[in-house]
């Protein structure tokens, strides 16, 4: 199991698969300041339908230069929600706060 290549979020209709998965979003250029570091990542999400979520986020964030990628080669028994939670927790540990698209404040 690994993340596939990055693609523009605007191209989600072409690349994002239907079905459960884990999605990662980043800004295309530059880094975002987080309390304990800088990162291009803005969101990690476990979703029941990668395609629907990617398309909805593409429409919602129209005009922003965002890239997207999703997990590929997923083994059947993988706990995707747990995997996503671990990714997010690791992010919080390294950068001191959740990714900016998850942060209400």
């Amino acid at each position, binding site marked *: 199991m690994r993340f596939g290549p990055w693609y523009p979020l605007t191209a989600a209709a072409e690349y994002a698969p239907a079905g459960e998965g884990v999605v990662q979003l980043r800004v295309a250029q530059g880094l975002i300041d987080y309390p304990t570091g800088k990162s291009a990542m803005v969101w990690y999400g476990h979703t029941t339908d990668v395609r629907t*979520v990617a398309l*909805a*986020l593409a429409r919602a964030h129209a005009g922003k230069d965002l890239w997207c990628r999703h997990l590929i080669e997923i083994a059947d028994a993988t706990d995707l929600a747990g995997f996503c939670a671990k990714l997010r927790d690791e992010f919080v540990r390294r950068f001191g706060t959740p990714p900016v*698209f998850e942060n209400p404040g």
Partner: protein
Amino acid sequence: MSLVEAESLGPVEGDAPLVTPPRPPHRRVSVSLLFTLTVLTGTVVAIYMTFPARHNVLMTEAIKHHQTSEPAWDLTSPSATELRAWAIGVVGKDAPLPGPGATVIGARRVELFERDAAVIGTRIGADEVTYLVQRARGVAPEHAQREEGTLRAIEWRKGPFTCIAVGPAASATTWRAAFP
């Protein structure tokens, strides 16, 4: 034979000039005041006739969405993180979203007053409640509400956002508590 015929229509040199009495000062003031009030009233009436009250239109839109039998959601049953990521794109950071007491059925982006608004369908207990949030522009009322049949629409301000929830009037107190 007259040699001064050309001057017969105008003042004749040597005549006393015609001096009209000045208008009384209070009359000048009252005419000026009347003119100013007329212009001001006309401007205000024209603005009200040209631009409908924003909160009325938002409420009407929210009620219309609530009454749609099968709304086309951009996101169906999104998780809290999905909804937050989506809402940041639609209405911006810090947008007040339904609290944990509300189950989100779906979310949809709409355009009102040439800016995006988020329409979020929720279930709170046995009630279906439609929530609309948009970044406020200009002066919006702090609180307003409208009854339409068995429905009640409640509008309130939360920071820079205008929020509207529409649901059954009978249980409005209960479902209103599920929103920030």
